[in-house]
Every structure is written in C-alpha cells, then in structure tokens.
C-alpha cells in the first residue's frame, strides 16, 4: 500500500464513523443540531479524501477540475438558496425535491458509466465482473429513476400542483404498474445479455413506475412515501457505490437506506397504517366511504367567536390541539398571539402534539417552534392524555381524525386502534373548522356530536384573529 491509499483509507474510515455518529445524534433533541453539522463535516471530509487520493495517484486533469467546479458551484448555490428561502410549512415537499435530486444523481452516474465505460473497469473485465458491473448499473438506474420521479410526483402533490386522478383509484393502476415492472425486468435481462441500447428502455419504464406507484397515494400518506423514497435514494447511492467501486458510498448508502426504512416503519405506526396499505391501498377515503361511521351528524352545536373568548377567559387550564388545518392556514403565529394573551392572564396553556400532527411527524413541532412557542409547552400524546379530565377548555385547530373518539370506542370503525387524543374528557371543547367536511379518513367524527363540543366555523387564521380582538375587548392580557 502506498501513501495515497493509506490516507484515503483512514479518511474514509473516519468519515463513516462520523456519519454514523451523526445519524445517531440526529435522533436526540439535545445533540441533533451538532450531529447535523458533524454529518456535513464528514461529507466534506469524504470529498477531500477522494480528491487527495486521485491527486496522489493518477492526478486530476484541468478539464476535470473545470467541470467539478461548475457542477459544485451550481448545485450548492441552488441548494442553499432554496434551503434558506423555503417557508417552514413547505418542508415536506422540499425534502422530497432534495431527495429526488439525489436519486437523479445516482441514475446519471450509472448511465454515464454504462454509455462510456470508464478506463479502470474495461481493463480486466472477466465475465463475472462485467455481470456485477451491469447488475449494479441496472439497480442504480432502476432505484434512482423511481426515487426521482416518485419524489417529484410527491412534491407536486404536496404543493397542490397535482391532484389524484380518478383512474388511479381503480384496480387498473395495479395492472399498469405490473406492466412497467415487468418491462423493467425485461430491459434488465436484455442489458445483461449485452444489448446496451435497452438501458434507455430501463430508464423510461422505471421512471414511469415511480410515477405510477406514487400518483395514487393520498395526501396524509405522503410523508410515509417520502420517507420510503428517502430510503430508496440511499439504496441507489449504495448501488452507485458498486458501480464506481467505493466502499464509503456503499456503507453510507446502506446506512441511510436502512435507517430510512426504520423511520418509515415508525411513521406508519403513528398513523395506524401498514406500509402495504399505504403503498397498494390507494387513498383511505376511497375505501371507507361505504363502511361504518359515515352517518349524519345529529347534535351539532355551533357558537360564535365571542362565546369562545368568554369561555377561554374563565378557564384555568387550556389545551391546544393543532393539526394539518393550522399548518395549511399558516396560522401558527396568530395562535401564538392568542396563547400569549391567555398566559398573561394567568391561564395555563399546553399544546397537545399528536405523533402525526401537521403534514409530517414532527412537522408541527417545527412550525410551533418557528412561532416562538416554548419547547416545554409542547406535550406528546401519552404525556398529555391523562391531563384532559382536569382541563377546562380544549381548542382543536384544524385537527380531525386524531381527536375522533371512534378510534377508542367503535371496533367497527376503520380508525379503530389508532392512538388519539382524548379531548372529549375536557369540560368544554371548541373545534375550529371551515365546515362539516370529514377529515382525511373520510369518517364522521363522533366528537362533534358530543354535548360538550362546540363548533366555531371559519378559517383557522381568521377565527384566531377575531379571537384576539374579542380577548382584547374582554381585557385579557392587557396588564
């Protein structure tokens, strides 16, 4: 072993270690920020390791430097601009976009090697080696393409640019996707047989497969899909590692792939969904329209913002249940103003965060943190549930299925078994909602019929703004 090889070996080893520590640290609140920086440092270290290895061995041509600099500057520039500019509410689609580009990168590397075999790999290609080479190129293209188109579709759906087309909810979609999958398999075998041109067929059908698989999946399942696609982009990177013979790439890709799978599993559990039903079940509302619980509401009480303000003023303890609707209305800052007023009046305010509140697990925490809500006021579901009986007022803001008592009481309900917040135990519940439309599951919410529940109809942001006005008139928080 000569010196460049040893240096690269040591740097790679260090980078892997730091990346592992980074992922580990990201799963704890205290260490998360440092861990993220550590991982970023490890990535830059790995680049230094690679470049110094080539400088010490084959050298790097001026021409290569030019293209390296062009690619790096453009990629980093756009990446950092987007990361700085994007609003916190659009976080899920941003992650999807970044992820798709990672998949695209792996795809392009494999495509480049397939069309123009790089010098090293041509020299000593026996049959076995060329087979491995072709298999890893195919896997990298296949997974990379699915990651790219799947992520782009997910992003477009989250942004509202793309809705779920009707035909994708019928059984036809399974047939279409099977055709794409079989076609990819045919292209794969054709490629191994030495027919290089079938690589384009592989690119096209795996891209279509990515679209076909993601398109039927409904809004609230999107985070699970993004997490799964994130795992795929790790697998694509590992496959690219086989293509260019890099252990570091294989380790890092495999780590992200496996960690992504675990995270996907954790998310599914929080939503009481299995991965299989997310991927193949279509959107939940389509299945459950005919099932139980879609009955009419019989005992709805609606009330004005003024009544709501009066009740809040008299309360000692208030629990806020924020949900998807709050994120959509971008009302987190207005909510914070309301709670500030209540706190100034000596009222105890706590936020109950369901594991899948917002548009992604943990997304609500980010949004509330952005609005300066103290971290200690955010309570997780298991911690806050025993508190509801001792609570005077619960404000449900744009949440629906996560406060449906059916999940606990009605074993015939499709929601049965999903962990929910027991808001009905509180003395008074106000549900701020646009109208009587069902939540994501399409199921009637028994909470709305209960005598201690009052509906305040209107857009979350507007209602909260009116609430601030009413509280002002009552002299709350004016001290």
């Amino acid at each position, binding site marked *: 072993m000569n010196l460049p090889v040893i240096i690269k070996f040591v740097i790679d080893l260090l980078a892997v270690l730091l990346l592992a520590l980074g992922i580990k640290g990201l799963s704890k609140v205290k260490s998360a920020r440092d861990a993220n920086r550590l991982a970023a440092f490890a990535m830059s270290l790995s680049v230094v390791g690679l470049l110094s290895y080539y400088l010490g061995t084959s050298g790097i*041509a001026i021409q290569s430097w030019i293209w390296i600099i062009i690619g790096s500057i453009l990629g980093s520039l756009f990446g950092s601009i987007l990361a700085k500019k994007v609003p916190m509410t659009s976080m899920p689609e941003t992650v999807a976009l970044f992820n798709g580009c990672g998949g695209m990168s792996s795809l392009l590397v494999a495509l480049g090697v397939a069309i123009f075999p790089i010098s090293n790999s041509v020299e000593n290609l026996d049959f076995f080696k060329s087979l491995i080479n072709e298999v890893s190129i195919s896997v990298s293209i296949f997974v990379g393409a699915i990651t790219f188109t799947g992520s782009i579709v997910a992003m477009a759906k989250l942004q509202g640019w793309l809705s779920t087309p009707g035909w994708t909810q019928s059984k036809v979609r399974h047939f279409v996707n099977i055709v794409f999958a079989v076609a990819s398999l045919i292209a794969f075998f054709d490629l191994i047989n030495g027919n290089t041109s079938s690589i384009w067929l592989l690119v096209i059908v795996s891209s279509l497969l990515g679209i076909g698989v993601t398109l039927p999946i409904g809004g609230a399942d999107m985070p699970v899909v993004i997490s799964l696609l*994130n795992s795929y982009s790790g697998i694509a*990177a590992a496959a690219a590692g086989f293509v260019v013979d890099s252990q570091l790439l294989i380790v890092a890709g495999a780590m992200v792939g496996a960690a992504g799978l675990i995270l996907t599993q954790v998310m599914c559990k929080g939503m009481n969904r299995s991965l299989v039903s997310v991927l193949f079940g279509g959107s939940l509302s389509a299945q459950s329209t005919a099932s139980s619980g879609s009955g009419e509401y019989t005992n709805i009480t609606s009330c004005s913002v003024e009544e709501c303000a009066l009740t809040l003023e008299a309360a000692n303890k208030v629990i806020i249940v924020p949900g998807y609707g709050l994120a959509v209305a971008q009302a987190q800052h207005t909510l914070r103003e309301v709670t500030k007023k209540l706190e100034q009046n000596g009222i105890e305010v706590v936020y109950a965060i369901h594991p899948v509140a917002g548009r992604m697990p943990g997304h609500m925490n980010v949004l509330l943190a952005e609005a300066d809500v103290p971290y200690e006021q955010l309570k997780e579901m298991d911690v806050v549930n025993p508190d509801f009986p001792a609570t005077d007022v619960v404000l449900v803001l744009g949440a629906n299925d996560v406060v449906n008592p059916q999940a606990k009481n009605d074993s015939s309900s499709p929601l049965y078994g999903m962990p929910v917040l027991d808001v009905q135990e509180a003395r008074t519940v106000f549900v701020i909602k646009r109208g009587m439309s069902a939540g994501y599951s399409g199921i009637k919410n028994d909470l709305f019929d209960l005598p201690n529940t009052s509906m305040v109809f209107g857009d979350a942001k507007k209602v909260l703004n009116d609430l601030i006005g009413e509280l002002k008139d009552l002299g709350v928080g004016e001290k």
Partner: protein
Amino acid sequence: MSFISLLWVLLLGSLLGLELIGKVPPTLHTPLMSGANAISGITMLAALTLIVKAEGNVPLLIIGSVSLGFALFNVVGGFFVTDRMLAMFSRKPSNKK
C-alpha cells in the same frame, strides 16, 4: 476490492443503519428524515469519480458534472434546511425566563 468484500460492506452498513435509530421522539422525525436525506447525497463521490476518470471525454464530463450538481443540491440544501429546523428547537431554552 473483491465483490464479496463489497457485499460484506453492504451487509454491515445496513445492519448499522438498522441499529442507529431505535427510539426517535416524534419531534425529530422531520429533521432526521431531512438529515438522512442529505447524507444520501453521498453519491456525489460517484459523480466526482466519474469526472476524474473521464479522461477528456466531454459528454462524460458533462454527465458527471450535472450529476455532481444534483448531488450537491441534495447535500448542501439538505444540511442547511435541517439546520434551519433544528435551530428552532435549540434556541428555545435561551428564550425562556
């Protein structure tokens, strides 16, 4: 590296990944996903290798460069956006009285 040892690397890397995140508080799901996503941009190393080994082949240089751009978009953007999210959690303790 022989193919078999690369397979070992793949296996051990996967096992490590499975073990790394056992318990994650829901608060961190989004940042963790975003951070892991940035790491998956490690494929930038493959793009770099492609460019270095292109030996003046212009189409290959261009493919490599575009690939590197996509990967760095993923890496740089991913780490920045994760940091932005995490900054909101960590500034909390200093804000309270």
